[in-house]
């Protein structure tokens, strides 16, 4: 018998899930479910949309309205769902490659519109499902099956990207600090606008093995030791930030939301008749 939380919100007949031993995707998915539970949302009022990739398998295990769509296009489908039924809490589950390479354009334009969608990026720094090719978030110098001598590209800072494109809520978390990640997801869902949450997770099978990062425990320990909360981060001298990264709520603002603007436009025509 699974835990009450899992029984209530998961399609338990589809478990155990397909993710590798030590893959952190299950931890991020649990944080999402805990957030939805904490908000007391009705399961019928939640729609989880994903693209393609390891992370995008998550909706198959979740007992909400779910859509598993095409590579990179989760946000395009989610935009349609949200405009058709603005009352739904639309949540996009995506990966680093799915959201920032294949679906990079959808990401920046969803953020620009500030449409009320919460996007959770499971960032494992690689394309896990297809065999460990390097992704836009693979750190410079790290290896992938398509970068056997090391990746010479600069990596995206996804949170900076989302903020610059117009997201009204931006946060980063890790699977080690899963409670804080849950809190950020709660705040993201509550935000009336585009919310972007980057969840740093582990891929011991491809990214970890290719880069000699050790086993799953070593990789989670790395996240524990290298993630610094925003409050502490702001007090750190620059030289101590090298090799570390900031977690927590990084940005929050209020600006007009897309479906409300759309409804207002429609209403203005109705009044004109």
């Amino acid at each position, binding site marked *: 018998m699974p835990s*009450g939380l*899992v029984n209530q919100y998961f399609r338990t007949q589809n478990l155990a899930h397909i993710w590798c031993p*030590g893959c952190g995707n299950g931890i991020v998915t649990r944080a999402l479910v805990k957030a939805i539970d904490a908000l007391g949302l009705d399961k019928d009022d939640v729609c989880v949309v994903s693209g393609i990739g390891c992370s995008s398998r998550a909706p198959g295990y979740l007992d909400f309205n779910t859509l598993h769509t095409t590579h990179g296009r989760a946000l395009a489908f989610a935009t349609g769902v949200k405009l058709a039924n603005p009352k739904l809490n639309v949540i996009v589950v995506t990966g680093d490659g799915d959201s920032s390479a294949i679906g990079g354009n959808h990401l920046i334009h969803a953020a620009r519109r500030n449409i009320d969608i919460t996007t959770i990026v499971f960032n494992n720094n690689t394309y896990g499902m297809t065999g460990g090719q390097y992704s836009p978030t693979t750190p410079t110098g790290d290896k992938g099956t398509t970068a056997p001598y090391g990746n010479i590209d600069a990596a995206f800072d996804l949170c900076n990207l989302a903020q610059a494109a117009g997201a009204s809520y931006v946060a980063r978390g890790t699977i080690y600090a899963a409670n804080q990640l849950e809190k950020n997801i709660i705040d993201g869902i509550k935000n009336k606008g585009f919310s972007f949450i980057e969840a740093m997770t582990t891929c011991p099978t491809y990214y970890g093995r290719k880069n000699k990062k050790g086993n799953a425990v070593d990789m989670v320990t790395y996240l524990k030791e290298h993630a610094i909360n925003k409050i502490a981060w702001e007090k750190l001298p620059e030289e101590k930030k090298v090799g570390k990264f900031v977690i927590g709520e990084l940005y929050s603002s209020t600006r007009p939301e897309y479906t409300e603007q759309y409804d207002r436009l429609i209403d203005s025509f109705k009044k004109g008749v």
Partner: protein
Amino acid sequence: MPENKEKSLTVDKEWCKGCGICVAFCPKSVLEIENGKVEIKNFDACIQCGQCELRCPDYAIYLGGNR
């Protein structure tokens, strides 16, 4: 179940993939990996913090239940 514990600790071995994350981050060394699966070795030391459940990627260990 010991009287000082409100909840039991349940493991579903069919779902456990033996990654060892729960073992590594249990603050009281309650757990061990044995034959590729998690075992509750010292439930008396469990402080019911739920760190194992929080980070189990496979939903295979949790506070509560009857197993």
